[in-house]
């Protein structure tokens, strides 16, 4: 399967290329680690700045990988960075304005389950019996991730924290 990535090669080198059965619908580590790092940032007090090293220590995601992901995530303003000795990263906008879909599309590229859906048109569209199924799948995937905001995850996190603290 050709990966439709608009990402520079330096990020690509971290991506496993093993193609065993069942890997295909997987969200890559790029997507999973980005969600983790962003939720981590969202849980910090407003305006707190953290370095990728600190995030790395707390999440176990490699520092270098985080740097690569943050380059991508800075472009659409999902996170912002402040240079200098006291610098670091924080969310680039309110957690309520960032959706899971924004993050996944930024680091994973197009999320269509088959690449023909990303194209304007397909020569065999009229006789294609499967396009409808793939389109429906794509629509459901998009609905799910576009309805989920980082603020929802923050809320879910706190309620899980409470429940587990009570145990």
């Amino acid at each position, binding site marked *: 399967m050709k990966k439709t990535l608009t990402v520079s090669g330096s990020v690509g080198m971290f991506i496993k290329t093993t193609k065993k059965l069942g890997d*295909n*619908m997987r969200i890559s580590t790029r997507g999973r680690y980005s969600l*983790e790092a962003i939720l981590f940032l969202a849980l910090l007090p407003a305006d707190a700045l953290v370095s990728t090293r600190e995030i790395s220590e707390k999440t*176990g995601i490699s520092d270098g990988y985080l740097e690569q992901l943050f380059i991508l995530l800075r472009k659409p303003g999902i996170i912002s960075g402040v240079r200098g000795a006291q610098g670091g990263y924080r969310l680039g906008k309110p957690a309520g304005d960032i959706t899971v879909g924004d993050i996944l599309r930024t680091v994973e590229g197009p999320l269509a389950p*088959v690449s023909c859906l990303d194209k304007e048109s397909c020569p065999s569209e009229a006789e294609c019996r499967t396009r409808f199924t*793939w389109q429906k799948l794509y629509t459901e995937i998009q*609905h*799910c991730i576009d309805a989920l905001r980082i603020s929802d995850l923050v809320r879910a996190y706190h309620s899980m924290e409470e429940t587990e603290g009570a145990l």
Partner: protein
Amino acid sequence: MKISTRGRYGVRLLIDLAEHADQSHVPLAQIADRQKVSARYLEQVAVILKRAGYIRSIKGASGGYALSRNPVDIMIGDVLRTLEGDMLVVDNPRPGEEESLLQRCIRTSVYSCLNERIASVIDTISLSSLVGTRDDADSPMYYI
């Protein structure tokens, strides 16, 4: 997050067989030709589908493949899981694997939602619905 060619061609192979159920069996070369796929590749997919009991093969010069189940009873989700391994967006946690609260929160909020949505689509689409509606009266018989 892509369905592999194996999954896509496998579904097309089954649709093709369902659409040509008036023939007792269809040579793979015909399907490959219609679907514009290499016969060699399609053969690999056919082997998996045969092993899983979706199709049966008839050997010989006039041989080929035929569905071994009624298309109404073949759900696309089952076919895709047969061909793709599973249709989950992340691996299930391995036994004994420590998951942080951060990871668990994302799993329950995001990945579970995606897995459920994906299943809700593919587990409600049958092969027959992709072939198009047919009257029961002229629907062909399928032998197992």
